[in-house]
């Protein structure tokens, strides 16, 4: 037991200070932060250990939409919501953000969609793209008078709306034509759409029908036969890739449920950087005061508590990187607060230790006794904080509790802080003291 902890203690300082230097102290000066590897026992970690920052620190946008579910029956709702999510994800992916996140939630019978776009700069474009509703339309060819041909645009040519739109489209998919092995895009309409499509194909037989996505012509196939069953294929010079992209476009055009933006939060990147540096500064100042306070109160025991505290900080930061924990500003507050709480176990133990010494017990026995007796208090006291931490963190995503990223960011750092704090406060301090005690006995 003891050896492994000492192992960890020996291991940490050689590797982690490099990381701290890059991550914290030189934050504003160097952007070069390589991937990192280190050993714990026999395990070797290779991982991108960059700290992950939430929207409030990295900058970006969070958008909450309310979903209008009035048009859909209860049993069709789950698939409709899932396909809505899929469509929005496709739209969001156009911005090429690595950490974009789309989430569904519900409260009572209200359904919500939350889109998080960390680091995005073109926020209004994103809002426009995400929020656009089904603008898929099918328009028939209209004869253009010969004298106007020169000036006629594509829109004049296809100006007869068939009444079909994205809401009638159930799905678009890629199929391979068995006759010529050419990819085709298959469309499937709902009942009303099938009827409209049948009428349209009757009317425009041997003419062209253009499919517009957001007023942008996607394709304009010629109607080869009347189609009564709501199933159509678009064939043309597709390769697999272009067929897939057309199917995706058609699917994306058909947002199954209308959405409305009800909450928007956008944070500029500079505000976040400012918050980080101020938070780190405040944390360092607080840490120095706490360290001095411990040394002032407990002398060499305080020094040992401070060493455990540094180990505590290193372990916690390592966990943030490994899990990874997305750091928000309340999360940083949580971390700073947890540093203050981590010392608690040591204070409890040291006060006990003093009492035992006062009662005349020898050093070694007083130490072991005080760890044992303080443990009950440490356990009980921290249980309370973990209970509220869990309620704030809401691990099961219950609708009736908060789901805000800010609050959760705080809760997760507090919970982690307490668990690691107990570990370092009790086990690490104890092992450090045992080493100390052995030396004492020798001399």
């Amino acid at each position, binding site marked *: 037991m003891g050896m492994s902890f000492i192992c960890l203690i020996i291991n940490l300082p050689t590797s982690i200070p490099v990381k701290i230097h890059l991550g914290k102290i030189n934050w504003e000066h160097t952007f070069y932060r390589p991937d990192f590897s280190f050993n714990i026992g026999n395990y070797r970690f290779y991982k991108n250990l960059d700290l992950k920052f939430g929207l409030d620190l990295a900058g970006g946008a969070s958008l909450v939409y309310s979903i209008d579910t009035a048009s859909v029956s209860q049993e069709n709702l789950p698939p409709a919501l899932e396909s809505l999510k899929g469509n929005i994800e496709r739209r969001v992916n156009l911005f090429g953000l690595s950490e974009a996140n789309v989430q569904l939630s519900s409260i009572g019978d209200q359904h919500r969609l939350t889109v998080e776009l960390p680091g995005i700069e073109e926020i209004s474009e994103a809002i426009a793209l995400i929020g656009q509703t089904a603008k898929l339309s099918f328009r028939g060819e209209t004869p253009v008078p010969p004298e106007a041909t020169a000036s006629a645009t594509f829109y004049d040519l296809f100006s007869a709306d068939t009444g079909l739109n994205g809401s009638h489209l159930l799905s678009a998919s890629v199929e391979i034509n068995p006759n010529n092995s050419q990819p085709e895009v298959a469309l499937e309409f709902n009942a009303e759409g099938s009827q409209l499509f049948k009428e349209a194909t009757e009317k425009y037989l041997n003419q062209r029908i253009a499919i517009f996505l957001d007023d942008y012509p996607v394709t304009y196939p010629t109607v080869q036969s009347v189609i009564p069953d709501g199933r159509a294929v678009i064939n043309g010079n597709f390769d697999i890739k272009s067929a897939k992209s057309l199917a995706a476009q058609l699917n994306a055009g058909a947002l199954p449920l209308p959405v409305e933006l009800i*909450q928007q939060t956008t944070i500029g990147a500079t505000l976040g950087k400012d918050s980080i540096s101020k938070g780190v500064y405040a944390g360092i100042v607080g840490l120095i005061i706490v360290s001095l306070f411990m040394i002032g109160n407990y002398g060499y025991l305080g020094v040992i508590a401070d060493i455990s505290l540094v180990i505590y900080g290193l372990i916690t930061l390592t966990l943030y990187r490994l899990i990874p924990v997305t750091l928000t500003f309340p999360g940083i507050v949580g971390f700073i607060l947890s540093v203050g709480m981590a010392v608690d176990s040591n204070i409890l133990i040291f006060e006990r230790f003093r009492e035992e010494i006062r009662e005349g017990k020898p050093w070694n026995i007083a130490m072991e006794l005080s760890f044992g007796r303080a443990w009950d208090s440490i356990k009980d006291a921290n249980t309370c904080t973990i209970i509220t931490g869990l309620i704030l963190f809401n691990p099961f995503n219950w609708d009736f509790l908060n789901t805000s990223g800010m609050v959760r960011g705080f809760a997760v750092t507090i919970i982690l802080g307490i668990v690691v704090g107990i570990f370092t406060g009790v086990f690490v301090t104890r092992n450090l003291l045992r080493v100390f005690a052995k030396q004492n006995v020798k001399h």
Partner: protein
Amino acid sequence: MNIMKYRPIFLIISSLLIIVSLFSIVKWGFRPSIDFAGGSVWEIKFSLDVSQDDLRRIFSDQNIDLNSISVSDHDYTLDFSNIDQSQKEALTSAIAVLDPEYYELRFETLGPSLGQELLKKTIFAVALSSLALLFFIGRKFSDFSFGASAVLAMLHDAFILIGSFSLLGHFFAAQLDSLFVTALLTTLSASVHDTVVTFDRIRELKRKNIKIDWVDLANQAVSEVIVRSINNSMTIIFMLFSLVLLGGQSTRWFAAALLIGVICGTYSSTAVAIPLVLLWKRKKQIK
């Protein structure tokens, strides 16, 4: 150390704090942030001096209620009603005319219905935490007077924290937001945390010496635990205090709320929870 002889003083301090809190809540109420009330906040960094009148004109042109403008340097914080995307774009283009080099630090808008929801979730979370802590204390201390006193001390702290934010809201424009709620829940647990350590000690001493008088017992337990209690709170207070002073605007009030909560929690475990237990025990003795 005979701390329990100061019980009348503790009673006066706690009563004063509660009366002031109650007075402020009734008289001035709270300043809910947009988290609860809905609305918009827009923080803009301008590159040049922009007159507040120009800003007000832009908002009145768009028929948007501008509640307040606060300025520090070239950073403007505008507080107004909930708007939609087209209104936002209209505002953006009007602002760009004033200062094309402006930089949007933060923009937030949300409808009032979301605020209602948050309020419900908050009340639920506070209720759930209280119940969970109550359950924990009940299991831990089969003696009802201990459990009830710990819970009352916890509510005492929560009420003073809420009251002090009513005061801070009135005098320093501190707002109630979801982070305040987080601080409130943390206060609940911190309060119980401290009380549990002291009660543990009382039980331990009682086991050793069953005949000891309750007041003497309380004095002995407190004098044994108080150094730990104060030292531990000091470390937390150092960390939070440096956050309040140095940590920047965005979480200053959050850190302040935690600070008030921690101080109350330390005070109440000695000055409220234990005197309540004594009160209980004395009544029993008289009977």
